[in-house]
């Protein structure tokens, strides 16, 4: 099963991308990052729609790009299934024909199209033109078109963002199955953390054109490494530490206890996980509750700390909920506090790294 390996440098006015990435052929690699960090650009570079100023891309033992050797395989020879963020559907072709567009010769086109129409609940729309589709319908057609072409690599730019909750669940399952069968490198750009939790085997986080973190999903979620990455991964509470006293972190916001690795330099930032802290009548971090929202499975509390910086906490339905406007003290278990750097210094896991291998 050929993997995909890339080392790329690319620049345009006000934006530079510079990274090393390795994507194995099993499982799904989710790519996250703030808006404008370069996710779509990375996908375009991998697909050959953009040419890096320096770089090297290898698929299995086939070289797709080597600036030094002046090799640059044309996009159509890379056989990349690419789903564009704005879909780029062919306006003159029906849904069925859009899906059939990339099919290889020798495939039973009608059967294949029918298969994908069914899988993405598009059957009744088969003869429509894209202009007569709703946003979510278009998105599904784009997804079907990319999947149907039997690509060797799959690059998807926010494939589920425009569909409702239950369809999204179905699509995720469908997608996982489809990809598990294929055994190809898959990159999924998404902003939805549930997508990531449910389908991703690996997670990459891009910040500002750089791959700050790449690794197995659980590992990346548990140890984001730096504050920016943590924020992307849904750690809403990052607090700057002014001083460490044994294993208690102190700042204008108050103080919490944390487990510190005695061999490492104490971190400058800590993150507090929203799940875990609970109101207590004893010792705890003093907060003012500003807002309580029923999130279905839990209550979300928006609080303010002593220095008025925000803190977001999720309380299980079973525990008592303080009133908005009231003051409270929060017990913060040690395992809910993780140390972070301002910026990660930990090396990324870039899966057999071509530079060092």
């Amino acid at each position, binding site marked *: 099963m050929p993997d995909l390996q890339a080392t790329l440098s690319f620049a345009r006015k006000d934006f530079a991308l510079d990274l090393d990435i390795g994507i194995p052929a099993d499982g799904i690699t989710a790519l996250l990052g703030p808006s404008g960090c370069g996710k779509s650009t990375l996908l375009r570079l991998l697909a050959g729609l953009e040419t890096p100023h320096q770089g090297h891309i290898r698929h299995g033992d086939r070289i797709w790009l080597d600036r030094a050797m002046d090799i640059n395989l*044309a*996009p*159509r020879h890379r056989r990349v299934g690419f789903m564009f963020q704005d879909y780029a559907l062919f306006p003159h072709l029906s849904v069925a024909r859009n899906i059939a567009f990339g099919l290889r010769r020798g495939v039973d086109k009608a059967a294949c199209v029918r298969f994908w129409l069914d899988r993405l609940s598009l059957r009744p729309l088969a003869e429509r033109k894209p202009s007569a589709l709703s946003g979510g319908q278009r998105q599904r057609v784009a997804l079907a078109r990319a999947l149907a072409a039997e690509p060797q690599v799959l690059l998807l730019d926010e494939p589920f963002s425009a569909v409702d909750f239950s369809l999204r669940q179905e699509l995720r399952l469908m997608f996982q199955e489809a990809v598990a069968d294929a055994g190809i490198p898959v990159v999924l750009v998404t902003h939805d953390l549930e997508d990531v939790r449910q389908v991703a085997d690996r997670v990459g986080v891009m910040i500002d054109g750089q791959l700050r973190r790449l690794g197995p999903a659980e590992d990346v979620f548990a140890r984001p490494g730096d504050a920016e990455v943590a924020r992307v991964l849904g750690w809403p509470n990052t607090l700057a530490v002014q001083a460490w006293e044994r294993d208690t972190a102190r700042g204008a916001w108050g103080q919490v206890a944390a487990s510190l690795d005695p061999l490492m330099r104490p971190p400058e930032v800590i993150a507090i996980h929203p799940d875990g802290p609970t109101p207590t009548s004893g010792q705890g971090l003093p907060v003012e509750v500003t807002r309580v929202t029923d999130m279905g499975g839990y209550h979300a509390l928006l609080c303010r700390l002593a220095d008025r910086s925000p803190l977001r906490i999720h309380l299980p339905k079973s525990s008592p909920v303080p009133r908005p406007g009231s003051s409270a003290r929060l017990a913060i278990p040690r395992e809910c506090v993780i140390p972070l750097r301002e910026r990660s210094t930990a090396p990324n896991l870039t899966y057999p790294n071509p530079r060092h291998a």
Partner: protein
Amino acid sequence: MTSLVACAPASLALSLQVAGVVLLLFLVCGIALGYLLSQPIPLRGLLDAIISLPLVFPPIAIGFFLLMAFGRHGAIGGWLHQTLDWELVFSFQALVLASFVAGLPLVAKPIQSAIEGSARDLIEAAYTLGKGRMETLILVVIPVVRRSIVAGLTLGVGRSFGEVGITLMLGGNIIGSTETLSLAIYNRVLDGDFDCAAKLSMLLGLVSLGLFFLLRRLGRL
């Protein structure tokens, strides 16, 4: 219809034949040039200008220069005559050449600007789906800009219908043999035979309208 064409019986068929051939040529060359001009090729600006140039010269002057080039003493004509024993001047091909030169810019330019305006992303999408340049052109670009292709073809064929100056010089305006419908009108007008000119104009108008509507129908498909 028969009464309309009575003044110049052969001209309608001739004009339609020329228009038919030119339409095919425009389809191929107009689209190819429009596509080429929309891509980042070297010397694009120059090519662009050269294609538009025939438009700015008086047709009769273009006809004259072409006549000099394709005449027996001309660079191209002399060679054609010697090696192939073939003479362009006075022939059906000359009429086609005249119409082609006059109409080409009108076809290529609208197609070029349409491709630049709206087909970029779709071309990329086709590439990722494994299609080459040629397939992309045929499967994506042409259908997507078909409105502009129709607009361009309408202009180009229209101009080719109405073109007189180049045709006059190259085709020779030989009554009954290289007299197209518009040359017939031109001749009748210069003869002072306004009745006949009006009838032929009516005929040309009707035929053109028919062609326009046909093209528009095709563009909607």
